[in-house]
């Protein structure tokens, strides 16, 4: 997938999922699958999900744009139920995340390993205009990335979520964060949590192994295209 270069477009503008820039750009549909039961990190989670469907969302439409300084992903998926509150102990919010490798060896399936973190840009429907940048060096180890300038905005309408998550290409988060540059390629992944199915933590739908993202060069059109 190509993250096209749009000079002179403020990241703030791109945070609106209905911005015209998103209509013009290319997007692609990624199929999602539930995370395997055997990879859930505790026996209690495995026992309680053995007969339940993991990963209620089948596919997500993804697009990415950058302006030379910042990169934004737009995610759109079908969801008949807007789960955006914590009204009861049994209520879980819808959520989405972009995963990026902090290091070329970072394994996405196990959310990183020591010295090779997986960086995630995480959005949750109970705070739809916020995001959280986290990194993990293995399942269950996510921790906030300090100094992150991550931003997001999500809108649910007519049975669909449309969410944009973005931040600066170069992160203040150091080696735990993905450091991105125009004219290069990186991997990325998407995860979607369906609140009505009580999905949270490792119970989610995800896009499998790293997908390829080409971040278009700023020097000339199509410079980073694969």
């Amino acid at each position: 997938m190509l993250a096209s270069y749009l000079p002179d477009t403020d990241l703030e503008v791109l945070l609106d999922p209905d911005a015209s820039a998103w209509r013009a750009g290319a997007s692609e549909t990624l199929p999602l699958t539930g995370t395997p039961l055997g990879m859930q990190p505790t026996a209690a989670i495995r026992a309680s999900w053995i007969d339940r469907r993991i990963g209620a969302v089948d596919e997500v439409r993804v697009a990415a744009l950058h302006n030379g300084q910042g990169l934004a992903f737009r995610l759109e998926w079908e969801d008949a139920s807007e789960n955006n509150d914590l009204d009861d102990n049994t209520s879980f919010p819808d959520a989405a995340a972009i995963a990026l490798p902090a290091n070329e060896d970072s394994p996405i399936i196990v959310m990183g390993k020591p010295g090779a973190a997986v960086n995630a840009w995480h959005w949750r429907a109970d705070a739809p205009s916020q995001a959280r940048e986290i990194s993990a060096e293995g399942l269950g180890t996510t921790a906030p990335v300090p100094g992150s300038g991550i931003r997001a905005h999500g809108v649910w309408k007519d049975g669909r979520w449309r969410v944009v998550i973005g931040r600066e290409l170069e992160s203040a988060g150091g080696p735990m964060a993905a450091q991105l540059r125009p004219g290069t390629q990186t991997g990325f992944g998407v995860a979607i949590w369906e609140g009505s199915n009580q999905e949270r933590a490792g119970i989610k739908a995800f896009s499998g192994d790293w997908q390829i993202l080409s971040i278009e060069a700023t020097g000339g059109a199509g410079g980073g295209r694969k």
Partner: protein
Amino acid sequence: MTATERQLAMVMDLNKCIGCQTCTIACKRLWTQDEGMESMWWNTVNTQPGRGTPRDWEELGGGFRDGAANPGRIPTRKEFGQAGDYNHQEVLFEGKGNGAHLQVKGDRPDWGPNWDEDQGDGEFPNSYYFYLPRICNHCTHPACLEACPRKAIEKSSANGIVTVNEDRCRGYRFCMEACPYKKIYFNEARRVAQKCIFCFPRIEQGIANACARQCPGRVRFVGYRDDQDAPIYKLVDKWKVALPLHPEYGTQPNVFYVPPIGPMRFDENWDLDPTKPRIPNEYLESLFGPEVHGALAVLRAEMEKTRSGGESELIDLLIAYKWSEMFGGFDRDPATFGQK
């Protein structure tokens, strides 16, 4: 998880609990008054037999079965019982006299802590009930800790107290599914799980838990499990009269109960009938496991000994002549908290 070097424990003597809820209020005032904690009662006292708090908690699963994690369900807020919003303003300040009485505004709750108070069981004149105070059991094999995918629940290696690390907790609530005692709450304002902390800030200063210290009935003993000179060891290990609640849940609680003997039963002629207990043994076994029969036999024998003029270390301990000796050395005055 590192091994627990020492384990703090509590023993509650159910023969002495009068259901006054002083423990509940002591805990509430100390720990659960912030936003998001309105409906939290880290300490509850329920009438038994009863459906409990949260409602039917014994049916909600969790813990371990044959050593394997047993799936459980998260109690809803209604099952815990939500805090009522009362019309204090109308009753107290609007000059309506007898025209207004205190009531919940909006939907009337259909459950709450100790909702089935004093309902009990049995047929008159042999009806019966007793009180069961509950806190987090600070288990040796904590199902909550093992269920958490974020390692957000910690068991202190120094004293065995189980706490939620709110910096790591992301409010996933697997712990609430896994705890078979349903003693973990969700704080929707802070988006984290919260529960009894065994008053560790007091414990660290040699002060017993608020629920124990404030108890007017001298029901609660506190101390290290392995302190052979203190009451916990004597009641649990030496005399074997204090038992965990629902040992079959497999979590190895560190809160123990001295089972209730109950009043004597009447026969059909209204004479006292010593041949059968009023509280059915089967019911107590359903709560405390088969060890309860031995515990009750020891209690009855030692009571009989003192009735006939003899001496009993066990009965003296349970009477708690010197209440400061109930706390295994954690007997410092809470008014001195924070002082050197």
